[in-house]
């Protein structure tokens, strides 16, 4: 009984850490403009729209976060193998991983912008100087929370995988969840804020991202507070639910039915989320209504 209570406590803590990590990850990737929305930042100068957005083209979020978290976890593991205290080891490991992340961000911005010479897009040194430290700060929060939750899974809950492998695994999952949820919010809502609300961006408007905004010329720091309104917390809730529910169903129901209990609970959870998703979809169709009249002729 005691071990289950301990397990639930750790599960709750990892769920909370995962939520913070997800929120920080999405905020960081939007301030740096990473992943699929970044193709618009790259395209805009080619269509004649020069801008002051940080063009951080470091792969996509899943592989990038896979690297930072695996690196942070690997360094933490190495420090712990040198008999350094666990908390200090994780902090030091994450600091070094964030240093690598910052360097990658700067080289990406310089490289992509210098290659857009033909279209006259300048390299803004002040953007480089002000944006890099902010993305590094958010990245540190995300990486630290992820490495800590990996450490808890390995040391407190007894997962067989060693720390760096767990870091790789959850880093990729963090990037995938944060990218899936946060990218459309940044891409459609913020980059194309000047388009009509409630509809996708028409293909004819590609590249025409918002460059002059609330107070003068928009830069990537302006995207930080916007993400923190909905995209960030939503990504956090997504990753937090993933980690929490995965651990919760294992800790509580693993012993029931020789493992089948956890499987059945998992299937039930999938059904619950399917119902929630269907409800959201139907709600949108009823409340928002169609864009045009329904197609009258008999459909296939």
């Amino acid at each position, binding site marked *: 009984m005691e071990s289950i209570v301990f397990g639930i406590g750790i599960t709750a803590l990892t769920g909370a850490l995962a939520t913070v990590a997800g929120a920080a990850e999405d905020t960081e990737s939007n301030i740096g403009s990473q992943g699929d929305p970044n193709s618009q930042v790259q395209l805009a100068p080619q269509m004649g729209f020069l801008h002051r957005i940080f063009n951080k083209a470091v792969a*996509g979020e899943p592989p990038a976060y896979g690297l930072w978290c695996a690196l942070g976890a690997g360094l933490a593991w190495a420090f712990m193998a040198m008999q350094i205290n666990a908390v200090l080891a994780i902090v030091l490991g994450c600091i070094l991983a964030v240093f690598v992340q910052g360097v990658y961000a700067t080289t990406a911005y310089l490289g992509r912008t210098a290659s857009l010479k033909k279209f006259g897009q300048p390299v803004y040194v002040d953007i480089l100087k002000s944006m890099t430290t902010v993305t590094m700060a958010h990245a540190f929060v995300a990486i630290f929370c992820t490495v800590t939750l990996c450490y808890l899974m390995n040391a407190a809950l007894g997962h*067989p995988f060693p720390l760096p*492998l767990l870091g790789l*695994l959850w880093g990729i999952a963090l990037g995938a969840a944060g990218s899936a949820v946060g990218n459309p*919010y940044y891409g459609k809502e913020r980059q194309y804020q000047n388009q009509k609300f409630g509809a996708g*961006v028409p293909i004819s408007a590609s590249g025409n991202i918002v460059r002059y905004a609330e107070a003068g010329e928009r830069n990537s720091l302006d995207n930080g507070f916007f993400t923190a309104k909905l995209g960030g917390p*939503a990504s956090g809730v997504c990753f937090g*639910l993933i980690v929490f529910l995965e651990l919760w169903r294992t800790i509580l129901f693993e012993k029931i039915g020789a493992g089948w209990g956890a499987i059945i609970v998992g299937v039930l959870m999938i059904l619950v989320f399917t119902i929630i998703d269907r409800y959201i979809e139907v709600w949108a*169709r009823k409340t928002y209504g169609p864009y045009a009249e329904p197609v009258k002729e008999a459909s296939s």
Partner: protein
Amino acid sequence: MSAVAAKPAAGGAMNPTAMAVGVVLLLVILGICWRVSPGLGLMALIGMVVGGVLIGFGVHFVPVGGAPAAMGQAPGIATGVAMLAAGAGLAGLFGGAWAADQGLVVAVLTGAVGGGLMMAITCMMVNFIYVFGMGIPAASGKVLNDPITGDSQKEFKSQGTEGHGLPFVSFVGGVIGGILAGGGGTLIYLMILDVYKATLPTMMKATEAQIMPIAISAAGIFAIGIFLVNAVLTAYNITGTIEGPHDPKFKRWPRAIVASAVASALCGLAAILIVVM
């Protein structure tokens, strides 16, 4: 400005000779394994081929929209297909590896459910953001009616776009993809782990408990490597984006089965040769 060599328009066509060569390669690799290690090794290799095929097939179900999806121009999730599949599969592998002591069937199903659960949560939150954060309902661009619910799609597609969000068939596709990828990845991991647990103690002259870290870690990194190879091959097959099982591109899956089978067999053989040579 255009890519250098124009690719032939037959992107979706099958190449029968190549498929036959692929099948022959697969049999050759299985044969080599049979010579080297008939019992344990061959069973493990077949298991790895099945796992790889599950991954390759399952990734076809996952709805991926790429860069246009991030702007609400195309349905699907706005991430790369290989890494989204990797995220779901690895989340499944996490659960499956934990349940490894409870037998093969339970562990693989646990991994499958883990992958499916991650995709279910992610797809639900994607629709959440589209509907409540951006005011955009889900609509598919490839079919007039959703194959599962029968909802009409055309009038919910905003002007100038190919659709957006995750219609219900794409959601279901995502969950199925997560289930298959998670199960496949876990199966590969467990097969390699079994082989290593049986052979490493003699090879390294230590007890099973002592070599467990090596076995787990090596099996884990092999599983991740084979997983990524299969996911990238599938990404090549669908050329980057797919709306889900209702997308016409889905019909290309036979090619991916052959490619995944051969690639997994090859990598699996290498993993087995480490301990039986």
